[in-house]
C-alpha cells in the first residue's frame, strides 16, 4: 500500500473520530474528501500492462556510425501519464530524436513508436536491452515504475584508417609503411634492394664487380655486394599502452578509445600489406596476440582490442601491477631475433612514462634496421589535452601543457619516427600524412 494511501486513511479516521467525539457534523462531512481520494486511488488504475518491443538498425557498427533505434510501446490498461526512458550506455550520443518521452494514456489502449538516432563514440559490446517506464496516478500523489527488457546488443568496432592518395605532389613518407620492416630470414628473391659493403660470409657470386672496380679508383678497397629482398613476410610489432594515463578524457572521448582506433587501423593496414602483425600491451592490462597474418589475425587483434575498453572502469583505489614498455620489450626480445621488425608504440607521452619510453626505444633500436637516419620505430603520441576543454582559457592552458610536453620529449623525438596525433583536431590519417615530405 503506498504511504500516500495510508496517510489519507489516517486523515480520514482522524477527522471522523474528531467529528464524532465533538459531535461535529461539519468534520464528519469533510472526512468524505480523503475517503473519496482513497476510493479514486483504488478504482481508477494507473497505466499498466506496458510492453516494449525494440529494434536497432545494425547489430555491428564502427565507432562514429549512426544507428537507428525504434521502440514500440504498447499500454493496455489504466489511465494517466506515462514516462518512457530507453536506457543508453554513456558511450552513446543522441543524434536525432529522443529516448525520453512522456505521454498521456487515455481510457483506450495506446500504442506508440519512438524513433531516434544514436552515435557510439567508443568500441565495445553494449547491451541496449533496458527500457524503463514510470506511471503516475492522474489524481492521487503516487507512482509506480518498472523495466521492460529486450534481448538486444550492439557490437561497436574501432574505426579503420581512411587512406588517401596524394596526387600531383612528389612526396615520400617518413612513416615506414612498410619498407622498413624487413625479414632477414627466407629465400632471396630476384627483387633488387640495394648495394652494400661486403661482410664476411656473403657469397662471392653476390659481389657487384663493376661497382667494386669503380670504387677502387675512389680509394675504397672493400668489395660491394648486391642485396636482394628476402622471401617472407615483414613483421610489425604494435605496442599499446593500457596504463591509467591513457584514461584521460571524457567518457565518450578519451585517449584509450583513440589508441584502440589507431591500433585497429594500423593492424588492418599492415595485414592488408601482407605483413605479420603482433599486438602486445603494456601498463595495466596484459594482452599478447602472437605474430600472425591474414584476416583471422585481424579478428584476433580486434577481439582483444574490444576487451581493453574495460580498462576505463578500473577503480583508482585498487593498485595493480603495471608493466613498463622497456620490461615488455626485454621479455619479448627472443621474438625479434632473425626478423627486423617495425615497432609501433601507441601511447600518451607524459612525465611519468618518459624514462621507460626512452629505455624501450634504445632496446628496440638494437632489434630493428634503420629507415634513413632513424630506426624503424614509430611512436604515436595521442595528445588528449583538448578532449576535456570547455572554455577558451582551458584551450590556452592545453596549448601551454602541449608545448611543455614537446620540449620534454625532444630527446625521444630524435630517436624514432614521432607522430603527434590530436584527435580533437584531426584524424589519424591526417596525422600520418603530416609526415609526408616533398621528395625534390
Amino acid at each position, binding site marked *: 500500500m503506498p504511504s500516500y*494511501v495510508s496517510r489519507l486513511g489516517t486523515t480520514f479516521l482522524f477527522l471522523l*473520530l474528531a467529528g464524532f467525539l465533538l*459531535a461535529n457534523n*461539519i468534520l464528519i462531512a469533510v472526512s468524505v474528501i480523503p475517503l*473519496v481520494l482513497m476510493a479514486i486511488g*483504488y478504482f481508477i488504475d494507473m497505466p499498466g500492462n506496458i510492453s516494449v518491443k525494440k529494434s536497432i538498425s545494425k547489430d555491428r557498427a564502427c565507432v562514429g556510425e549512426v544507428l537507428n533505434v525504434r521502440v514500440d510501446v504498447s499500454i493496455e490498461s489504466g489511465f494517466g501519464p506515462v514516462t518512457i526512458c530507453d536506457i543508453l550506455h554513456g558511450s552513446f550520443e543522441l543524434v536525432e530524436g*529522443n529516448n525520453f518521452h512522456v505521454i*498521456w494514456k487515455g481510457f483506450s489502449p495506446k500504442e506508440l513508436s519512438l524513433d531516434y538516432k544514436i552515435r557510439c563514440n567508443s568500441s565495445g559490446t553494449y547491451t541496449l536491452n533496458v527500457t524503463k517506464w514510470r506511471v503516475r496516478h492522474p489524481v492521487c500523489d503516487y507512482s509506480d515504475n518498472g523495466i521492460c527488457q529486450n534481448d538486444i546488443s550492439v557490437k561497436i568496432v574501432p574505426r579503420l584508417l581512411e587512406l588517401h592518395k596524394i596526387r600531383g605532389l612528389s612526396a615520400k613518407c617518413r612513416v615506414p609503411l612498410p619498407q622498413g620492416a624487413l625479414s632477414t630470414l627466407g629465400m632471396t628473391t630476384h627483387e633488387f634492394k640495394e648495394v652494400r659493403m661486403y661482410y664476411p660470409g656473403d657469397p662471392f657470386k653476390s659481389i657487384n664487380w663493376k661497382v667494386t672496380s669503380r670504387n677502387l679508383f675512389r680509394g675504397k678497397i672493400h668489395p660491394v655486394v648486391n642485396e636482394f629482398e628476402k622471401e617472407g613476410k615483414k613483421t610489425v610489432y604494435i605496442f599499446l599502452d593500457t596504463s591509467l594515463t591513457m584514461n584521460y578524457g571524457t567518457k565518450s572521448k578519451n585517449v584509450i578509445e583513440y589508441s584502440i582506433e589507431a591500433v585497429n587501423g594500423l593492424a588492418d593496414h599492415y595485414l592488408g600489406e601482407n605483413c605479420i602483425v603482433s599486438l602486445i600491451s603494456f601498463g595495466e592490462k596484459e594482452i599478447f596476440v602472437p605474430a600472425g597474418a591474414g584476416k583471422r589475425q585481424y579478428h584476433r587483434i580486434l577481439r582483444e582490442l574490444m576487451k581493453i575498453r574495460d580498462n576505463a572502469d578500473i577503480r583508482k583505489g585498487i593498485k595493480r601491477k603495471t608493466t613498463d614498455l622497456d620490461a615488455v620489450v626485454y621479455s619479448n626480445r627472443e621474438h625479434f631475433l632473425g626478423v627486423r621488425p617495425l615497432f609501433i608504440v601507441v601511447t600518451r607521452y607524459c612525465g611519468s612514462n618518459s624514462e621507460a619510453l626512452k629505455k624501450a626505444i634504445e632496446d628496440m633500436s638494437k632489434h630493428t634496421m634503420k629507415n634513413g637516419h632513424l630506426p624503424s620505430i614509430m611512436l604515436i603520441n595521442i595528445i588528449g589535452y583538448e578532449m576535456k576543454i570547455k572554455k577558451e582559457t582551458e584551450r590556452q592552458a592545453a596549448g601551454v601543457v602541449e608545448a611543455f610536453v614537446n620540449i620534454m620529449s625532444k630527446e625521444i623525438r630524435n630517436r624514432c619516427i614521432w607522430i603527434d596525433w590530436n584527435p580533437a583536431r584531426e584524424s589519424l590519417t591526417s596525422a600520418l600524412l603530416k609526415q609526408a615530405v616533398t621528395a625534390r
Partner: protein
Amino acid sequence: MKEWTLTTRILLAVFAYFLSLLLFVNTSAFEYDNFKTSFITVNVIAAIIIGLGYVTSKNALSPNFFVCMGLCVPSLMAYSKLGKSIFEINVENNFNAYFTAVLYTIVILMLLAAAKLKRLEKEYDTLVSDGADEEDVKQITTNGLKVYSAFIAGVFGITFVAETVGVTFLKVEGSTYTAIITAIAGIILFSGCVYFLSRKWTNQSHK
C-alpha cells in the same frame, strides 16, 4: 505555463487564507479587542508563522495550510455539541452551520488544488530538465489539471450533499440513545469503508 500555474496557486492560497479569516472574524474568538487591533494582530501572527515556515522549509503552502486550519477551528467548534458541553468551549459563530461547512470545504479544496498545482509544476520542471519534449509535458500537465478539476468538482458535490444531510440531521430532535446509536452506526459505516479500501490496497500491492 509555469507563470500562470504559479499565479493560480498563489491566488488559491490567498483566497483560502481570506476565507479562513472570514470564518474566524465572524466568531466570538476574534473579538478580544476592537476590530482593527484584532484584525492586525491576527494577520501579523499569521504572516510570522507563514514566514517562519517559508524560511525553514522553502515552502509557503504547508504553513499557510496550518494557518488556515487554525483560523477555521473556532468556527467549527461553534457547532460542536459535545465541545460545548464537555470541554466548556463557548464560541459564537455569526454564520450558520451550513454556510460554515461550505466555506470550510471550499478552503480545503482550494488548498488541495494549490498543492496539486505545485506538484504538477515540479513534475513539469523535472520532465523538461530530463529531456522530454516540452509540448508533450504541457499536454500531460494540462490533462492532469483537467482530471484534477473534475475530481475537485466531484468531491465538492459529494461533500455538499453530505453537509446538507448532516445539517438537516443536526436539526432533528432525538433522545440521547438515538444520538449514541447513530454515532456508533456512523463510525462503523465509515470505518468499514476504510477497512474495505485498505484491505483492497493491501491485496493489490501483494499481487
